[in-house]
């Protein structure tokens, strides 16, 4: 707590106290008395404005006495204006009615939450998923269209996913679901199988992650914000596509009265992922006449994936109480999810396929969210709690070999596993709990102080009847049966201040990361008791940022942060197989600088243009990497340092009211610096970080044809082109002298979507065509991606 008081004292000199004046506050709701978040409330003459919070509440301070015109607007609602006279503190509520006709006007003048985040002082790209919700796309497809983001999968729907964000990848990029680390959901949720219509937004943090979202992250993260719908509404969609892919979703909300509502969110995914891969190696056995194997040879074939089925389902039900004296919102939720994946290959494509290995997960999650504002909205208190129990099974225990024709070979697989080094039939139980408490206090109209405490813990145990054993006092023990525990506490405090009539915004934050983990030391030998080992660490991070609004059209922003990423349990304790522990592993650290500028202008006749330019500079230290440990094993150590620099451009351009373009461009250089490994003489200095492209961009064109076939029915056409420059899967200094066999060639991907919207029937039909020109597209480590493929989606809502 000493640190806490110190921080408060440090911030106090920055605080600008408010002057005497009046306050106007209130709440904005819709026809169903549901709060309208992020509505614009504008006060004439005084040039003041406010945005409603998630409870629909707004507040404006320092209002001088007088008569004003106040207007409220929000996406999808009729703008409302009224006259008020300020002679004292005033409460003014608004009820907005929904509209379709007014949509365009609001689009121009209103600000969605996504747009507000994009204009934040820190570099955030917030993707408004609702604009794509009716398209037959996955969330990963939408994410690919953002600047600075590379999404790579090891196969089709449901396969392993790797996100590269501003050059950071793997564990360095954290993913959150509704502000909670997604791993707490025990595999129930993954970015690449959540339907696009199950999300409200996707926030991409490229620098500072706010204290009320982040945990440990090296310099970036994704927050998937689940869909929030109000009113009595039921939305459903179904899509069917290539490779026997079916996706169904259902989302609904029902208001019992103005204080009580219930909602449901659910989805089902199924796919065989049986797409063709071209020109891959395939092992063939040459048999003698007696059926025994004489030799094996390798051929090149076009092969159809045959063991890549993916099934997942999720249902979440919530009960919410709103606007009662003791709570602005109390939401209790329960979530159930089940998922199973067949596995088709390991990291690389080799001459053998995986024909039997699979994983399963069953997850139950209970959540509680509580929000309450005090002292006339000055103090806001949020609590989120989560309890998750998941059962995960991994089965890789066959004596069979399969080739890419799906044939079982005569030769028996003596190893007894297809992917792992040893046979595995592990069933593990994971219990995770998380609590996040956030309090924000508006010290004045210009100063807001936020404090957040996030605490989470996971306990994992299980059993594996055929896995590794350790010998304790002569007895063989399954190390999976010994619970591993991990607990982490992240304390954060943040100060937001504005100056010069809110033209200059400054933010500063401090975070403290406290971490402890306990697990069995599985390589111990000659022992007489269970060798439990505990590691602890306590580290600090900090950062600050400023934004200057030069005019209504242009702003500049810059931020600096020192962040860290804590080692994972596997990295510290090993994996009960080939990875040996390293109890001295230190967190990865990074100093990040982000700078950017944004220009946007609303032109006449609903035309629009915007341009974002940003750059980043990172100096990463103590990168955690595996290195050989003796002749057989590997160990994670703090090794290389990496220096990264990049530039990003993003643009939106609407030359006509029914035609728009979005584009994004990223160029980055990620260079390996000096190694910390005493066994290295620094021979890799200057090499590019492998398996990450330096240049990629995409452009999307959207065109709307109005009143097609029938009045008000629109046809929306969309075309997306994605370019990824060549890159090497190996560490090379110069791509021109790199081994062409391991260079992933330049890729051109073209996708199209056509949607027919029938607003009066609340119906949308979409057809998406991916990889239109049937190009060879590669993913992580040259894994081939599907050729041309189709998906048809129908969306319906009932109000």
């Amino acid at each position: 707590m000493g640190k806490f008081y110190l921080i408060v004292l440090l911030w106090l000199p920055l605080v600008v106290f408010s002057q005497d004046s009046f306050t106007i506050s209130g709440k904005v709701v819709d026809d169903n008395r549901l709060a309208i978040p992020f509505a614009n409330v504008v006060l004439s003459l005084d040039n003041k404005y406010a945005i409603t919070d998630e409870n629909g509440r707004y507040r404006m301070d320092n209002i001088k006495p007088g008569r004003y015109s106040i207007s409220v607007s929000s996406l999808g609602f009729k703008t409302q204006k009224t006259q008020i006279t300020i002679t004292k503190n005033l409460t003014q509520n608004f009820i907005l009615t929904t509209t379709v006709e007014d949509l365009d006007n609001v689009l121009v003048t209103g600000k969605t939450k996504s747009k507000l985040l994009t204009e934040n002082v820190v570099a955030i790209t917030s993707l408004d998923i609702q604009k794509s919700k009716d398209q037959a796309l996955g969330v990963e497809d939408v994410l690919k269209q953002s600047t600075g983001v590379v999404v790579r999968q090891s196969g089709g729907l449901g396969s392993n996913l790797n996100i590269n964000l501003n050059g950071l990848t793997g564990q360095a990029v954290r993913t959150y679901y509704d502000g909670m680390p997604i791993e707490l959901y025990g595999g129930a949720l993954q970015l690449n199988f959540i339907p696009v219509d199950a999300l409200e937004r996707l926030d991409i943090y490229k620098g500072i992650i706010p204290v009320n979202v982040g945990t440990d992250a090296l310099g970036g993260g994704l927050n998937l914000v689940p869909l929030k719908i109000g009113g009595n509404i039921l939305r459903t969609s179904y899509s069917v596509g290539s490779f026997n892919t079916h996706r169904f979703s259902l989302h609904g909300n029902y208001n019992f009265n103005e204080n009580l509502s219930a909602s449901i969110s659910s989805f089902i995914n199924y796919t065989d992922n049986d797409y063709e891969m071209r020109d891959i190696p395939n092992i063939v056995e040459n048999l003698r006449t007696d059926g025994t194997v004489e030799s094996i040879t390798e051929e090149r074939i076009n092969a159809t994936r045959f063991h890549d089925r993916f099934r997942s389902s999720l249902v979440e039900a919530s009960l919410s109480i709103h606007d009662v004296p003791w709570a602005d919102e109390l939401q209790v939720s329960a979530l159930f999810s089940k998922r199973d994946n067949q596995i088709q290959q390991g990291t690389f494509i080799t001459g053998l396929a995986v024909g039997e290995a699979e994983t399963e997960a069953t997850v139950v999650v209970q959540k509680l969210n509580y929000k309450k504002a005090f002292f006339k909205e000055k103090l806001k208190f949020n609590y989120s709690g989560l309890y998750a129990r998941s059962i995960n099974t991994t089965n890789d225990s066959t004596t069979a070999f399969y080739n890419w024709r799906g044939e079982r070979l005569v030769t028996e697989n003596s190893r007894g596993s297809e992917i792992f080094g040893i046979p595995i039939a592990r069933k593990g139980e994971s219990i995770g709990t998380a609590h996040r408490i956030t309090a924000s206090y508006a010290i004045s109209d210009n100063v807001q102080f936020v404090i957040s405490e996030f605490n989470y813990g996971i306990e994992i145990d299980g059993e594996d009847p055929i896995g590794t054993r350790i010998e304790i006092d002569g007895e063989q023990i399954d190390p999976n049966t010994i619970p591993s525990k991990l607990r982490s506490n992240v304390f954060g405090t943040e100060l937001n201040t504005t100056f010069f009539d809110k033209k200059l915004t400054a933010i500063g934050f401090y975070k403290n990361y406290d971490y402890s983990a306990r697990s069995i030391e599985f390589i111990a030998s000659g022992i007489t008791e269970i060798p439990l080992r505990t590691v602890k660490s306590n580290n600090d991070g900090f950062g600050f940022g400023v934004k200057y609004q030069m005019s209504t059209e242009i702003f500049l922003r810059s931020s600096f942060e020192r962040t860290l990423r804590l080692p994972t349990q596997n990295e510290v304790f090993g994996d009960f197989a080939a990875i040996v522990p390293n109890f001295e592993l230190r967190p990865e650290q990074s100093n990040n600088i982000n700078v950017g500028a944004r220009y946007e202008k609303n032109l006449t006749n609903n035309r629009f243009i915007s341009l974002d330019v940003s750059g980043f500079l990172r100096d990463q230290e103590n990168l955690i990497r595996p290195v050989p440990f003796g002749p057989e094993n590997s160990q994670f150590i703090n090794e290389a340092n990496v220096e990264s620099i990049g530039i990003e451009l993003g643009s939106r351009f609407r030359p006509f009211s029914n035609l728009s373009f979005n584009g994004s461009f990223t160029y980055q250089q990620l260079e390996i610096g000096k190694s910390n490994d005493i066994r290295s003489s620094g021979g890799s200095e200057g090499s590019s970080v492998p398996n990450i492209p330096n240049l990629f961009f995409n452009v999307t064109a959207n065109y709307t044809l109005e009143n097609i076939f029938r009045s008000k029915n629109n046809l929306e056409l969309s075309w997306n082109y994605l370019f990824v420059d060549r890159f090497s899967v190996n560490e090379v200094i110069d791509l021109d002298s790199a081994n062409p066999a391991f260079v992933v060639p330049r890729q051109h991907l073209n996708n199209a979507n056509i949607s027919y919207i029938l607003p009066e029937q609340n119906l949308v039909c979409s057809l998406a065509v991916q990889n239109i020109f049937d190009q060879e597209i590669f993913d992580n480590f040259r894994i081939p991606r599907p050729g041309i493929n189709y998906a048809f989606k129908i969306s319906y809502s009932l109000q």
Partner: protein
Amino acid sequence: MIYLFIFIHTSCDDGLNDLADLGDVNNIKTSGFIVVGTTSSNTARVKYFENLPSGTIDLSDGIDFPRFFPNSIYNHAIFLARPDESPGYSKYVVSENGDLFEIGTLPTLNAGSFRIDVRDAEFGVFQDRATPDNITIFNPTTLQIIDGVDMNEGFVPGDIDQRYQRFIFRGDDVFAPIRGNVTGESFSSFILHQANLITGQFVGDTQRNGNGVSDIITFNNFGQRLIDDSGNLYVADAGNYTGGQVWGRVNKIPAGSNEIDPDYVFEPARALNPSNVFLPTFNNFYVLNNGKAIAKVNSETPQAAIDIILSVGGNLANLTPAQTQEILSILFSAESARWCFLDLNAFTVTPIANIPAVGVFSGGQVFFDGNTIFFPVANATENAYFSYNTNTEVVEKAFEITGADISGVYNIANNN
């Protein structure tokens, strides 16, 4: 602007790399040196040098592979596990243009198959770890499979699957030390299986025992060079390097015998420093002329490890598993080994003066060129080869390597 850029860019070529001009692969290089380096991502950078390297050589423009670990060289061809990490083995040559060129493969089912050895132009042996009780005899010139040898009769403690660490030729026989196949576990004795290349039959087995508890490890080193002037075969085991206190040993199979001589006990690490009990191992063992050999012998225990031992009263039995692990971590990265000459008859070990200390697991393979032996030195300050002239006994730094950490240098003029 961004749209203009995209338009211009997409008008350009697709940027696919053309394959290197390989020239006439029938006119392969018959001399020269393949220098292999390791990157921080554990991938390989490989570059051919026509002449013996000198000064500082740069690997940064070398050709890259996911791995490149030669096992054998014969008739100027390199035999190794497939550098693209596909299951199996490759045969590489250097084309007349100095490019590495894969002229054939021997696929296997198991991606972990890692050892191929060549005796001469007619016989080589490899193992597919998918069939652990078998080894395969092949023709290194044509890469045709000659025969499979059922090694099922060989003694394996616990009768678990084994793999062969390497193949050591003596005449028409091949000796192969075994190791557990599935998890890499070892056995508490050092066991060799023997087969005959001509008959394609299993011949027998021989072993040296340890303490009956601790595993005995063996290393994979390039090539052969394990038979002395009298036809005695020397095979090294590494002892135990996880605190089991079993000394690594040079094992002798006398000429004319198929059995390890139980009376021949030569433990180089013990000879060099009898108090070095935690990591009493040695590596890169090669037999020279006149009863001499070379090896990298671990010689010292770092002070940080000694301090931990002293903290429990100097009694190793009092160490906790965590302390043992910590000591091993220190030892694995310590520069506590020396390049040494071994006298196989006098059982003496002599560090070679003026060659810096290295870690016993540090990278690099010894190579030979005429009367000169080249020793790799990869430590915190050096990434170089030091030469030792057997005529003049002069040691000097031969060349430094930049652009990657040392993995090995291979003289393609020499057979194994």
